[in-house]
C-alpha cells in the first residue's frame, strides 16, 4: 500500500458504493458493530454540522466552520484511535472531537465564543481547535515524542488542512517527527482549498503525500470520502507508530461542500460544476449508506430512527449549552496563570466590581 503512486490514492469503496477487491478484504474483517458505527457517526456529524449552520444563521452561535463533505475523513480516522491517543485538531474537526469524547454541548459552547467549551472531560486527550494554521502540528509531534520517551504506546495525531502544508510549522514538525521517529500521524484533509486559494497555488507538488519523502517517512494518499479506506490507512499508520516505526503523513483527498466558514462565500472562487461533482457524485455518506443498504445492514426505517435519535441528542446538547450559565466577566482571568499575580488579582477585582456592567 505504501508504494502507490502519490497522484492516485487508496480507495476501497467507489462513489457508487461498490467495494474493490482490496475493499472486500477490509470489509470482511470488520465487525458488524464497526460497520454500522461508521454510518452512525457520519450521519450524526452531518446532522450536527447542518444544525450548526442553522444556529449560526439564527445568531445563536458565532462564525462557524462547517465540515460537510469531510465526514468520512474525520470519522474514519477518529474511529481508528484509542482513548490513550492524543488529538491536536484544527478548527474544522468537530467530527473528530465528538468521537474522541468531547460532549456536544461543549462544542456548541466553543462556537458560542465561550472558553469553557475548550475543556475536554477528564481523560479525553483532545486539545482545543487550533486556529492559527499548522501550529498544532509540532504539538502533536511533541506529544508523540513524549509517548516514545515514556515508552508508552499512545500515538498523537495532528489534523490540518492542505493550506497548512505551506507553513513553516508543518515543515519543522515533519522534520522533528522524522528525525526523532516519533509515533505521530500527520493527518491532512486536502479539501482542495485554503479559503479561496486552490491547492495548485499552495503547492507546486501535485500532492501532499509526496512531501513526506523530504522527511523520510511514508506519505499515503487516500480517498478521503471513503470511510473504509481512511479507517484502514489510519489503522495501519497507528500500528506502525505503536510498533516504533515512526510517523506517517496521510493525505485524505476530500472537499468541503460549503463555504470555508459561515462568513465566506465560496461561489466567488469555486466553479459550480466542481462543487456539483463533489456534492452529487462523491458524497461520503451517500456512498457508504449505499453499501450498507446493499449489504442489508441498514434499512430506511433504521436510518430514520437513527436520524431521530441524532436530532434528539443534538437538541438536548443545544439546550444544555444555551442554558449553561455564562461565565462572569472576571472569568477571563481564570487560568491565566496557575496562581494569579497581584497585578491580575487587582484587575480581576476591578472587573468583578463592575458586576457585569460594561
Amino acid at each position, binding site marked *: 500500500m505504501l508504494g502507490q503512486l502519490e497522484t492516485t490514492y487508496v480507495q476501497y469503496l467507489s462513489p457508487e458504493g461498490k467495494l474493490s477487491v482490496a475493499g472486500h478484504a477490509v470489509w470482511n474483517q470488520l465487525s458488524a458493530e464497526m460497520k454500522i458505527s461508521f454510518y452512525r457517526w457520519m450521519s450524526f456529524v452531518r446532522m450536527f454540522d447542518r444544525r450548526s449552520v442553522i444556529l449560526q444563521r439564527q445568531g445563536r452561535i*458565532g*462564525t462557524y466552520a462547517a465540515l460537510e463533505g469531510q465526514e468520512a475523513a474525520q470519522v474514519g480516522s477518529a474511529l481508528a484511535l484509542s482513548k490513550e491517543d492524543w488529538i491536536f485538531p484544527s478548527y474544522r474537526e468537530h467530527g473528530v472531537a465528538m468521537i474522541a469524547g468531547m460532549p456536544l454541548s461543549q462544542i456548541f459552547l466553543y462556537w458560542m465564543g465561550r472558553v469553557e467549551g475548550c475543556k475536554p472531560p477528564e481523560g479525553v486527550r483532545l486539545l482545543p481547535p487550533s*486556529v*492559527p494554521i499548522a501550529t498544532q502540528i509540532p504539538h502533536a509531534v511533541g506529544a508523540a515524542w513524549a509517548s516514545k520517551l515514556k515508552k508508552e504506546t499512545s500515538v498523537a495525531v495532528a489534523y490540518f488542512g492542505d*493550506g497548512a502544508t505551506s507553513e513553516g510549522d508543518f515543515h519543522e514538525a515533519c522534520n522533528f517527527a522524522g528525525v526523532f521517529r516519533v509515533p505521530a500521524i500527520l493527518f491532512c484533509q486536502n479539501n482542495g482549498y485554503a479559503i479561496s*486559494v486552490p491547492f495548485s497555488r499552495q503547492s507546486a507538488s501535485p500532492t501532499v503525500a509526496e512531501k513526506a519523502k523530504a522527511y523520510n517517512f511514508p506519505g499515503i494518499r487516500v480517498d478521503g470520502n471513503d470511510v473504509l479506506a481512511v479507517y484502514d490507512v489510519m489503522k495501519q499508520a497507528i500500528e506502525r507508530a505503536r510498533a516504533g516505526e515512526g510517523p506517517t503523513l496521510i493525505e485524505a483527498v476530500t472537499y468541503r461542500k460549503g463555504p470555508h466558514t459561515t462568513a465566506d462565500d465560496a461561489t*466567488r472562487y469555486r466553479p459550480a460544476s466542481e462543487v456539483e461533482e463533489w456534492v452529487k457524485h462523491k458524497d461520503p455518506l451517500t456512498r457508504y449508506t449505499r453499501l450498507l443498504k446493499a449489504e442489508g445492514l441498514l434499512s430506511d426505517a433504521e436510518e430514520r430512527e437513527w436520524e431521530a435519535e441524532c436530532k434528539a441528542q443534538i437538541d438536548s446538547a443545544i439546550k444544555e449549552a444555551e442554558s449553561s450559565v455564562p461565565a462572569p*466577566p472576571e472569568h477571563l482571568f481564570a487560568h491565566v496563570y496557575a496562581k494569579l499575580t497581584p497585578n491580575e488579582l487587582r484587575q480581576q477585582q476591578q472587573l468583578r466590581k463592575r458586576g*457585569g456592567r460594561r
Partner: protein
Amino acid sequence: MKQLTMVQAICDGLRVALDQDPSVLILGEDVGKNGGVFRATEGLWNEFGDDRVIDTPLAEAGIIGTSIGLAVNGFKPVAEIQFMGFIYPAFEQIVTHAARLRTRTQGAFPASLVIRAPYGGGIRAPELHCDSTESLFVHIPGLKVVTPATPKDAKGLLLAAIQDPDPVIYLEPMKLYRSIKEEVPEGWYEVPIGKARKVREGEDITLIAWGTMVPVAEGAAKELEKKGVSCDLIDLRSLYPLDEETIIQSVKKTGRVVIVHEAPKTAGLGAELTALINEHAFLYLEAPVTRVTGYDAPVPMFALEDDFRPSVSRVSEAVQQVLAF
C-alpha cells in the same frame, strides 16, 4: 466625493496606488480572486491581474520574506496579513530584516514595504483573531506603525505608508471597517505619518486613543460633555513615530490624561505614552496619567470580549476619577 466605509476607502487607496505606481504589488492570502476576507481588495485582481494582486501560499513568513526580496529588487509590496493575530510567524522577518535592512545595508537595500493587518476585537470573530499587539512593533526601531480611525484617514494614511520609504505596519481596526461612512476624496492624497488628529478640543483632560478605541473615547467625551467635562481628544493615528508635540501641548493645557487602548495594560503603548508625558510635561501633571486598557489576560473568546475591551463607561469613570484626584 463618495461616501465610503473604511474598508472601501482602503480598497480605493489600494486601487489608486496600483494605478499610479507600477511598482506597487499586493500580495497575501485570499487577496486575489476572493478580494480579501474583508473585501479590502475587492475587484483589484480583476482589474490589475494576477501579477499585481497575488494570492500567495498560506505562509506569513514567506509573504513577508519574499516581500523583502521583492522590495530589494524594485517593487513596493503591500502585503496583507489576514489578521494581526497571525502576524507572529512573520515576526522574525519583520523584526530582524524589514526593520533593520536599511541600517544593515547602510541605505543600499532598504526594505520599503507596507504590511496591512486587521486588528482588534468587537466583531465576534473566532478565537485568536482579535489581538492588538501594536506595542510590540512600536518597540522595534526601523519600523513605522500607523492605524486609522476614519475612512478618510484610512485611505490617506495608507497612501502615505505606500509612499513612505520605510517599512510601515498599517493596522486596520476591524471593528471600524464598516461602522462609519464618510466622504473620502478621490485620487491620491496623503495623511502624513507622525501627525496625530485632534478629534475634539477641550480644556479639562486629555484623552488619547487610536484605531478601534477612538469611537469609544469619543463616546466618553460626548457623555462627559453633558456632565460639563470638556475633553481634548487625540487620535494618534501614528503610533511610531509619535506626534509628541500634539500630545505634550495638550497635556500642558489640561494637566490630566487618560489613555485608552485595547491591548493588555502591561507594557502596552499606554506605558510609553505615560513615560513620554512624564518626561516632557512632568510639572504640568495634576494627577497620575491613567490607562484604560484591555486586561492582562489573553484576549478572551467573544462571549467576554466586550468585558475585555475598554468601554465608554470605563473611560468616563476613569476620567472622573482623574478629575477627582
